[in-house]
């Protein structure tokens, strides 16, 4: 038993340690010297990475997967965009424009219904296998195969016959409007005119997947097979997968088979799934990251003060709003909905709660390009009171109990309390706040068991339609119980015209009608607040935030 503890005494008897213990001052000085040596030899991660041409990006969370046909989130998109390339790619500095991707030339008929994509002959998969129109045909068939259970296949519904095939009304894929007359030509026939089709093909649901690899690991309609494992994944983008450690990082490296490999400016990207945005901001501050995914609201002012050259605040195509359950007794009357909308002081919420220089949402669709913003939503408590009285609830009397459903985050609570105070002050209505954990919140909202519910929408492509077509009757993301025949007739008309000006006019009409009905109460248009290192060159503000990585360059600051 003696062998257990004497070691402590033996340690104490080592002469040097004894000396240090006898002379604490010397010990402390030695420790400080060691520590300072330690810190001096350290070069920051960003310095090393910039020198090696590796971009380090905060990416919020572990992705659900890397299969472009199966996943549907922003953070997955960030990684997939580096690995795969569609027919055309996002312009690196201009919103709503495109540059050639796998297709070197795009042609359309006079009313933009039949599109021909001429694929480049040098296009290859990262294993050297040629990429042909056959791969695109396979990919379209795959994402539309019901058993793949892709939650985003509706992005291909613009193709003739695609919806029928996806919903199982036909099992013959040759009835779908895509064809491959030769290995380098792809023809897409649409339901109606769609002048901005290239804009849609930038979305990852339109990306090709390698037929020869996918079929090696499973059947066409089988989700989550092993083909996206690091050792199996074959892709066609400017980068290919290098390593994947769950909850630690995903790293991509240069793809030498990429058709434009010579012009890719960086050697790789390291995506870090940093959940905690405070940690992320601190990591940026100590040079561990080139780009953060976001900056938490409380740290925006601090970042602006300490990192003025690095903090960016840019419009992002998304709207934060509150859904009204129009089947709930209180909100069947649009005057009540409008009264609630008009008593939201959007500016005060932005200045005091969200803190991210968001823009007050005067309409549903954020302003972009040629599409002008709508303006009917405004702060007008006087009119609101009148409307509420007209609806039969003077000063809120007689209104049934109203519950405001939101998530369990602190920021959601702060916003809910601000709204609660505004409604009490201006309408005399006490709204109860109901905070639920995320999945329960979604479940409750989807079942329409709420009066008012916090919500938001990020546009999938650069067209007002992405904000409007979700409000049709029975639409998967409508969830308000609201529908309107006139609104849907307008959207149908939109699908039939190829003229952009006419389209925008009709879309505007639909939006105005929607806002007049006010089944949702718009609050603000999103901005993205993030920090970016000065080493990163060529990262321009893009409203969809789909930055094409191949144009980036890294230059270590001198």
């Amino acid at each position, binding site marked *: 038993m003696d062998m257990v503890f004497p070691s402590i005494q033996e340690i104490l008897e080592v002469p040097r340690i004894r000396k240090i213990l006898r002379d604490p001052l010397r010990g402390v000085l030695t420790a400080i010297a060691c520590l300072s040596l330690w810190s001096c030899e350290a070069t920051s991660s960003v310095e090393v990475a910039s020198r090696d041409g590796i971009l380090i990006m905060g990416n919020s969370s572990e992705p659900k997967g890397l299969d472009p046909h199966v996943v549907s989130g922003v953070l997955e998109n960030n990684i997939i965009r580096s690995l795969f390339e569609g027919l055309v790619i996002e312009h690196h500095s201009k919103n709503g424009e495109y540059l050639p991707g796998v297709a070197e030339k795009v042609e359309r008929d006079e009313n933009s219904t039949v599109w021909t994509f001429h694929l480049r002959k040098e296009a290859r998969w990262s294993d050297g296998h040629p990429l042909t129109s056959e791969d695109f045909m396979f990919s379209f068939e795959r994402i539309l195969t019901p058993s793949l259970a892709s939650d985003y296949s509706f992005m291909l519904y613009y193709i003739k016959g695609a919806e029928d095939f996806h919903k199982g009304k036909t099992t013959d894929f040759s009835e779908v409007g895509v064809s491959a007359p030769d290995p380098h030509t792809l023809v897409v026939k649409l339901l109606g005119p769609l002048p901005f089709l290239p804009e849609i093909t930038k979305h990852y649901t339109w990306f090709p997947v390698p037929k020869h690899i996918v079929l090696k690991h499973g059947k066409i309609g089988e989700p989550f097979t092993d083909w996206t494992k690091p050792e199996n994944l074959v892709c066609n983008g400017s980068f290919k997968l290098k390593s994947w450690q769950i909850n630690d990082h995903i790293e991509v490296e240069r793809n030498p088979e990429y058709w434009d490999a010579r012009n890719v400016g960086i050697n790789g990207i390291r995506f*870090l799934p940093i959940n905690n945005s405070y940690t992320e901001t601190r990591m940026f501050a100590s040079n561990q990251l080139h780009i953060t995914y976001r900056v938490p609201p409380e740290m925006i002012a601090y970042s602006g003060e300490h990192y003025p050259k690095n903090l960016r605040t840019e419009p992002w195509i998304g709207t934060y709003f509150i859904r009204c359950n129009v089947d709930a007794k209180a909100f069947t009357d649009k005057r009540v909905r409008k009264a609630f909308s008009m008593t939201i002081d959007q500016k005060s919420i932005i200045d005091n709660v969200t803190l991210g220089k968001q823009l007050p949402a005067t309409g549903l669709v954020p302003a972009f390009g040629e599409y002008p913003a709508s303006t009917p939503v405004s702060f007008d408590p006087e009119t609101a009171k009148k409307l509420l009285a007209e609806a039969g609830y003077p000063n809120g009397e007689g209104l049934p109990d109203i519950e405001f459903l939101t998530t369990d985050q602190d920021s959601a609570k702060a916003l809910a309390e601000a709204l609660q105070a505004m409604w009490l002050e201006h309408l005399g209505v006490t709204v109860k706040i109901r905070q639920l954990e995320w999945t329960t919140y979604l479940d409750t909202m989807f079942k329409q068991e709420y009066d008012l519910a916090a919500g938001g929408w990020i546009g999938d492509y650069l067209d007002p339609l992405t904000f409007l077509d979700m409000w049709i009757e029975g639409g998967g993301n409508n969830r308000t119980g609201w529908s309107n025949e006139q609104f849907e007739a307008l959207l149908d008309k939109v699908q039939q015209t190829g003229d952009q000006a006419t389209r925008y006019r009709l879309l505007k009409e639909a939006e105005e009608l929607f806002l007049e009905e006010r089944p949702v109460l718009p609050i603000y248009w999103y901005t993205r607040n993030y920090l970016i290192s000065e080493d990163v060159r060529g990262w321009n503000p893009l409203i969809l935030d789909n930055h094409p990585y191949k144009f980036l360059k890294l230059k270590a600051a001198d």
Partner: protein
Amino acid sequence: MLRFITYRLLQGIIVLIALYTITFFLIKAMPGDPFTGEKNIAEETKQLMREKYGLNESVFHQYFLYLKNVFTEGSLGISTSKAHSVNEMIGQSFPVSCILGLTALSFAIGLGVPIGVASAVRKNSWIDYSGMALAMVGICVPAFTVGPLLQIMLSMKIPLFNVAGWETPRDVILPAITLGLVTTAYIARLTRSGMLEILSQDYIRTAHAKGLPVSRVVCKHALRGGLLPAVAYIGPAFAALISGSFIVETIFQVPGMGQHFVNATKARDPFLLQGVVLFFGLLIVIMNLAADILTGFLNPRVRLDQE
């Protein structure tokens, strides 16, 4: 001895079955399902997903199917939220939690024991008071305060460490300190009380009277008995430390086990949650058994066969 081990193993199996049953039905009772996402997906699509994961079967069928897969294939299932197999996820994150937990435990013992001993030996002196005050702080201040404070002081103000991440061996230090602080505090307090009791014993007085130096009395005679309460505490503390901590892992961006528990619950991921719960249940059963056997060998007064 064999009878004792068999007996404890049987007990362990019952514990695991109870654990699995409770987890399984709790998951079923949660609102929402694994396929509830931000963007609503069609009911037919959800049905296909359920079929893929075998979640369309009856509850009892699912209950036994999972058990069957665990026993026949050793497979804990496929995560519905992350598209990896649960075995792979545990395989990647458990070693990380192990390293972090062991470092935290070494830190806790390395700091807690000396503080406790010093406090006991110099009872009611400033050493005692400051040591115990420190221990109280360690117990009271939560990890979500200590972690960011350490990051700000030792990474941003004085750049000694990375703020977060898991790349270099050095990255283990800050999370280990944060994780081990509470354990340190408990060990310090337990060591102090254990030592105080021993130091007041007659044989210690005899040792002093023999003219032995204080260091020898403390290290050789008192420490062995004085550490017993702390040693008894270290067993369960070790299990808690290596099971990972969601808070420490998210603050320091450590790819450990702790976050699976929280994320799987949030995502209603049945297989990941059952998998990690079962894995840890098993680990704790084995460690308890090992601890019992070890005690039996070390302490002849404990007779395992007479239970």
